[in-house]
């Protein structure tokens, strides 16, 4: 089953594979991104950061909606990643079954303001997170497991 639903604009990287993957004992990682889904080259790149015993599954947002039930029934533990709020919101709305979302990394860009050291958001992105939370999904910011999970109300 999916043990962690995470929004992280770096997608697969050290915090995900080592920081979360080790303590959660994951057997698979689902990377939900429409662009990566159709790029063999980028998929190879992301696979390089993952030990061979962990399966990496690439899916579009639409495919993730279709396959979430299958991944939730998987006896292995998994992490599902999206690179932005929209893809996660699509999954939550389309598939349900997402009890909580971990906001793990949205970094500085023009138009975003700092909410936490690792969370920068535009006003529109903040509104999207509030809407997501209003549907019953628990949204928490936490970059690594040893850090305190911070509720939406504390940084918006």
């Amino acid at each position, binding site marked *: 089953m999916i043990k962690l639903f995470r929004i992280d*604009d*770096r*997608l*697969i*990287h*050290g915090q995900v*594979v080592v920081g979360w993957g080790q303590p959660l004992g994951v057997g698979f990682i689902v990377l939900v991104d429409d662009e990566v889904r159709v790029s063999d*080259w980028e998929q190879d*790149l*992301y*696979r*390089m*950061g*993952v030990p061979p015993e962990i399966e990496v599954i690439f899916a579009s947002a639409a495919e993730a909606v279709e396959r979430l039930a299958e991944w939730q029934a998987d006896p292995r533990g998994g992490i599902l990643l999206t690179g932005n709020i929209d893809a996660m919101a699509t999954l939550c709305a389309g598939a349900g079954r997402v009890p909580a979302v971990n906001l793990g*990394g*949205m*970094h*500085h*860009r023009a138009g975003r303001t700092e909410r936490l*050291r*690792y969370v920068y958001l535009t006003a529109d992105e903040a509104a999207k997170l509030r809407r997501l939370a209003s549907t019953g999904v628990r949204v928490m910011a936490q970059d690594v497991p040893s850090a305190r999970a911070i509720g939406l109300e504390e940084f918006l």
Partner: protein
Amino acid sequence: MSEHLVGVVVSHAAVAQALVAAVQGITGIDSALVGVSNEGCDYPAMTERLERALAGRRGVLFVDLPGGSCLTSAARYARGRDDVAIVTGVNLAMLLDFVFNRDVPPADAGRRAAAAGAKAIRVPAA
């Protein structure tokens, strides 16, 4: 004579800056390497940092891990270019070799540095 290559050390946290400082301290050469950290960066921001570090020069990107955000950023930046090569698993030994062997094409410099770095990994007898 062709312009010497620049080495860009790409790492998590401040590993890159520490390695660059160590090479400068050992060799006295202060113009061969630039450190780039991924701290606080998404991929577009990392691309900007790499562009600033290379500043239009030919070079080698020395990345800390053979996977993850530093490599992903470097590989995206270097894709399809012959003026930039990538080496992963950066260590001090490979950088020390590199700074004295920069008058070659980037791919050759990368291969040489990787070999020098690999030779430095040993388990000395206790």
